[in-house]
Structure formats: structure tokens, C-alpha cells
């Protein structure tokens, strides 16, 4: 037991912060990028560079496309591992549910189909397993966009920030969950350690080495404290079903009973009737839903359109309003009998608890139309990164001289990991963007290659950080920080230039056309390049200054020995 409460809190803050800080860095940085995930998608897939589109006609366009969607081979293989016995052939699986989802920032429309699987799941907690199929279309023409093209923003950076792309036994979700919990603990312990929370709210003393680092750590932590707290907390709320899977395990009978009660209460059939039925005009249902929203004084576009029990007498169509002007994602659902088009149910106002849950998850997932708030979120996310990075630096700076004297290498390894988590992460990010521009357009499974190149770049940054870390063991600065900053500057300059060369969309053109998804991302990359180059030059100066002060010291030591 440590001698005082504050020392105990310091211990928790330091060690938990160090160990899980690397994961938190990923969550905050790629979370900040995810604020503009759809815009990054436009940058990565040039053929989708046009204005966002509303939900297209179901009857004329979506219905035939849904019919053509096949079970995804990866999803099929995954389901095969989850069930007893061999699955029926892929092409013979029957569709059960379909859905299409869009937001005010999406030029493309994401569509999915779930296919029924007759096999019994291996997991006794599950009733059934589904195989999924996906399609992304251009809603103007119905053209299907190849799934080989990786949506770097929404399919790579965004899932990276909550799953780390480690899907085995949901390992990534658990690591991120632990990191989020650690973040909450670090905020509380940090507040206890700080003591002068309000008195030093505006304090930043530059050019004072350790003091400056600590000031920046405190400033970025305290000024954005509500942001850090709410994003760590709501992240946990969103995945509560994974962390506390009680409905599928401990409370399974209650959950099943609840589903039956819900069915009676809402009139929405839980199970199919296994009697075939035609589908009435879905466009007419959408028009009716929009009329009803208008009557409530909240006209809007469709955010989600789904059909449950497709082609069955119990089938129903759900139309949800896009939450463009609210924090809640989608809402005001109206449900129709699929075979006749009559309204079964209009979702009432959410209860107080559901409303709070919607607000908490909505504020994190941010599908609203509010560019100022989006940028403020990016600022909050980057402040979180700065807070964590300065935490690493403070940890190393505080210890490296003692460690150098004692011949211990702890600070050296912590510093190398810090380099990997900060500049290494930026290198990996820059590399995937450059790879996206350079890989041949018709390369099979192009997206998988982009992902592999990302991880390889990060691994190389890790190796470089460890290889160049020797000066830290002597109490000096690792040149890896500077060298990797130069690589970041190079990559972030190369990416917009390559975007220009491969697509012809240079900055003058995109700015003149007011096409901000691409112009904004190019500009952001150039700003990062400039900041990285500036940091590299400052680091060089700091290294030289340290060498200059170390030299006379060494000479005087040698003179004393002579």
C-alpha cells in the first residue's frame, strides 16, 4: 500500500496510463479521423466523388439490386465455423432481412442482406446464425461499386478505433473496453493528482522542458475533460452488449419472454409465418412515412429502410428518419405490413431511459449535420492524443536520467513504444493513403492489400524506433522521433500530390469546385506535413543542444579522471 491516497492515485495514473495508453492513442486518433470517415472514403475511392444523395426508389432501383446480392464468402466461412454440420451451398441460402442505410454525408448507399442458416449454432446461447451479403451502390444510377475498393475511412479507420481489427474472440473490443475504463480511471486519478485544476486551467509555460510537457498534458486533459469523459464513457455504453452479454446468457429466458411481450405490444412479428406473400409498393410506404413526419412538424429524409421476414406473410417494412438535425442517429420509425402497405405501428416518443441512451450513443456516433461540432470533436480527439503523447514523454523524461545512471533500460523501451504509438501511427496512416493511390485499380482484394501495407509500415516504424533508441539509455533524445517526423512529412505531402497525379483532382480544382471532402482532406494532410517538418527541425535543435551541454560535462569528467 502506498503511503498516501494521492500517491496511490499517481501509481494508477502512471502505470495504467502507460500500458493502455498505446491502445488509447489508437482510439483517440482514429476516432478523430472517423469524424470525417465518409470524406476520407471519397478521397480513397475517386469514382464516388459526387454530392451526397437521398435514399433512391426502392421499387425501381433497390429491389432488383437486393435480389442480386449474394452471400459474402467471408461471412459464409465465418458462419460455417459457428455452426454444427456443413452449411447448405452458398447460392441456395434464402434471404430473410434486407436493409439500406445512408446519411447526409453519403454519396453512396450501403445495402445489406441477411441469409437464413438452418444449422444449429455451436454457441448454446444463440438461437441462430446468419450469413450476410453486402453491396455499395451509386444511388444515381444503381451501379454497384466493387467491394474490393476499401473505404479507408468507414471500413478501416473507423472500425480500427473500436476493434483494433482484432476480431478473434472479440479481443479488440475487449482491449478497447479496458482502455476506455482506464481512461475514465486516468481522468479521475489525474484530477486527484493535479490539485490546481481550475487555478492552472489556462496555464501553459513553453520552453521549460519537463514543466512545459506537464503543462501541456494537464491543459489538454483538463480543457477537454468533458469530451474525454463522455467519449470514453459512451464508447463503453455503445458496446455494453459485448462487455455484459447478459441477454444472451444469464437472462436468456427473460430476454425471450421480453421479445414475445414486445411482439404483442408493437404488433411486429418476431418470427416468419413461413407463408409466402408478395411485397406491396415500398415507395408508397416511404411517402406515407415522410407525410407523417411532416405532420409532426419534423419533415426529413429516410436514414434507414429495412424489411424483416422478406417475402413472408409476417414480413414488415421499417422506415426510419435520418437524425440530421438531432443527436439521436435515426428515429421516428414507422412500420408497415410488407404485403399490404398498411401501417402496423408508429414508434412513440422514446422513454426517458431510451432517450438518454439514444443521446449518449448519438453524441459519440455523430450522424448529425453540424460541421462546427464535427471540427470541435476533431479538436477534442487530437487534444486526447496530445494528452496521451505528453504523458508518454513525461514518463520517459522523468526517468531516463536515473535509468541511464542505474544502467536500467526501462525508459528506453517506453520511449521506443511512445515513438511507435505517436509518429509510427502517423507513418502507418500516411502509408495506407499513399498505397491507396499507388496500387493498381484492378488488383484483386485491393482493400486487403492496403490493410496489410498499413500494418507492415507500422511494424517497420516499431523496428526503427527500437533500433534508434540507444541514446535514451544515455539520457539523451531518441533520433527516431525526428526521423519518423520527416517520414510523416514526406508521406503527407506525397498523398495529396499522388491524388492529383492519379485523379487530376488537385487542390485548386477541388477548392474552386467547392468539393470539400477531397479538398479538406488534402489540406489537412498538408497541414500535418508542415507540422511534422516543423517538429522534426525543433527536435534536431533539441538534440544538438543536448549534445552541446553533454560535451563539456563529459570533458570535465574526463579531466577529473585524468
Amino acid at each position, binding site marked *: 500500500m502506498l503511503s498516501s491516497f494521492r500517491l496511490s492515485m499517481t501509481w494508477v495514473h502512471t502505470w495504467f496510463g502507460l500500458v493502455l495508453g498505446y491502445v488509447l492513442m489508437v482510439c483517440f486518433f482514429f476516432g478523430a479521423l472517423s469524424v470525417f470517415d465518409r470524406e476520407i472514403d471519397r478521397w480513397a475511392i475517386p469514382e464516388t466523388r459526387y454530392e451526397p444523395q437521398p435514399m433512391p426508389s426502392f421499387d425501381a432501383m433497390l429491389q432488383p439490386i437486393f435480389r442480386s446480392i449474394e452471400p459474402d464468402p467471408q461471412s459464409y466461412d465465418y458462419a460455417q465455423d459457428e455452426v454444427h454440420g456443413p452449411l447448405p451451398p452458398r447460392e441456395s441460402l434464402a434471404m430473410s432481412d434486407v436493409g439500406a442505410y445512408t446519411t447526409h454525408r453519403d454519396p453512396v448507399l450501403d445495402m445489406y442482406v441477411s441469409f437464413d442458416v438452418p444449422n444449429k449454432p455451436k454457441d448454446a446461447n444463440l438461437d441462430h446464425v446468419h450469413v450476410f451479403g453486402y453491396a455499395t451502390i451509386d444511388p444515381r444510377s444503381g451501379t454497384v461499386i466493387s467491394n474490393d475498393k476499401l473505404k479507408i475511412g468507414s471500413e478501416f479507420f473507423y472500425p480500427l478505433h473500436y476493434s483494433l481489427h482484432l476480431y478473434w474472440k472479440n479481443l479488440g473490443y475487449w482491449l478497447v473496453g479496458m482502455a476506455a475504463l482506464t481512461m475514465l480511471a486516468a481522468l479521475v486519478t489525474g484530477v486527484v493528482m493535479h490539485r490546481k485544476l481550475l487555478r492552472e486551467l489556462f*496555464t501553459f*509555460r513553453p520552453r521549460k522542458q519537463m514543466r512545459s510537457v506537464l503543462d501541456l498534458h494537464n491543459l489538454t486533459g483538463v480543457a477537454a475533460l468533458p*469530451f474525454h469523459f463522455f467519449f470514453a464513457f459512451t464508447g463503453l455504453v455503445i458496446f455494453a452488449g459485448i462487455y455484459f452479454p447478459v441477454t444472451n446468457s444469464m437472462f436468456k429466458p427473460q430476454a425471450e419472454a421480453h421479445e414475445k411481450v414486445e411482439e404483442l405490444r408493437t404488433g411486429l412479428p418476431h418470427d416468419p409465418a413461413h407463408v409466402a406473400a408478395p411485397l406491396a409498393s415500398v415507395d408508397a410506404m416511404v411517402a406515407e412515412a415522410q407525410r407523417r413526419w411532416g405532420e409532426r412538424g419534423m419533415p426529413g429524409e429516410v436514414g434507414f429502410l429495412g424489411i424483416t421476414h422478406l417475402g413472408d406473410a409476417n414480413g414488415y417494412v421499417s422506415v426510419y428518419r435520418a437524425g440530421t438535425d438531432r*443527436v439521436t442517429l435515426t428515429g421516428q420509425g414507422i412500420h408497415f405490413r410488407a404485403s399490404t402497405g398498411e401501417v402496423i405501428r408508429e414508434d412513440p416518443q422514446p422513454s426517458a431511459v431510451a432517450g438518454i441512451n439514444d*443521446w449518449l450513443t448519438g453524441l459519440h456516433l455523430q450522424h448529425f449535420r453540424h460541421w462546427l*461540432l464535427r471540427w470541435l470533436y476533431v479538436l477534442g480527439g487530437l487534444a486526447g492524443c496530445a494528452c496521451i503523447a505528453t504523458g508518454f514523454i513525461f514518463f520517459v523524461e522523468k526517468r531516463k536520467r536515473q535509468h541511464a545512471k542505474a544502467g536500467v533500460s526501462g525508459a528506453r523501451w517506453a520511449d521506443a513504444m511512445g515513438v511507435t504509438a505517436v509518429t509510427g501511427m502517423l507513418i502507418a496512416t500516411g502509408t495506407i493513403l499513399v498505397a491507396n493511390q499507388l496500387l493498381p485499380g484492378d488488383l484483386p482484394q485491393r482493400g486487403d492489400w492496403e490493410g496489410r501495407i498499413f500494418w507492415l509500415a507500422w511494424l517497420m516504424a516499431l523496428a526503427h524506433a527500437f533500433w534508434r533508441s540507444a541514446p535514451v539509455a544515455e539520457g539523451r533524445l531518441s533520433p527516431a522521433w525526428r526521423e519518423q517526423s520527416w517520414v510523416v512529412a514526406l508521406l503527407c505531402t506525397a498523398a495529396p500530390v499522388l491524388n492529383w497525379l492519379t485523379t487530376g483532382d488537385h487542390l485548386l480544382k477541388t477548392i474552386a469546385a467547392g468539393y470539400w471532402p477531397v479538398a479538406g482532406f488534402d489540406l489537412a494532410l498538408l497541414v500535418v506535413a508542415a507540422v511534422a517538418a516543423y517538429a522534426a527541425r525543433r527536435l534536431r535543435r533539441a538534440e544538438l543542444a543536448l549534445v552541446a551541454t553533454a560535451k563539456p560535462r563529459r570533458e570535465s569528467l574526463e579531466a577529473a579522471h585524468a
Partner: protein
Amino acid sequence: MPDSLLLGLALLSTLCAMGWLALGMNVHWQQVYGDVASSARTVRIVRVLGACALAVSMLLCLSSDHASIASLVWVMSLAASVFFVAFLLSWRPRWLAWLVPWART
């Protein structure tokens, strides 16, 4: 009034609020005015101004967006303003003197 103008004014209001609240602290007052200490009356005035500006910015946020969004914009604008004022104090502290024209000598 267009929303962008309302939001711009809301941001300006939180910026001023944070500037005034910082000037209400002696250490920051001295960053701006050297070793001259602020009077108790001035401290009271800037703190009241700071609190009022925070309230005004919240009203401006509420008049621009649905309350659920406005609350988020307001809280995040506080964070942005704290950063702005903290970096201004370490870079060009004299600029904050614009917020207290009556104290200029």
C-alpha cells in the same frame, strides 16, 4: 439570423468569457499587465462579464440548434476557448488587454 452567424457569435462569446475568467486570476493578469496587480473591483467585473458571456454563448447555441446538439456545441466551444486563451497567454498575452479597455493605462 443565419445559423453560421449565431454560431460564430457563440464562439466569440465563449472566447471572450474564457479571456475574462483568465484575467480574473492574478497570475494571468500579471502576464498581460506586468507586475501591476488587478484591483478587487476589476476582478469582480471580469468574473461577472465572463459568467454573463458564457450564458450568452449558451443562449446563442440554443437559438441555432436543437437543445440536444446545442449542449454539445457549447461544451466543446468551452474546450476550444480554453486552448485558445491558454496559448494566447503564452504567446501574445498583451492581446488579452483588448478585453479590459478601461484598465489600459
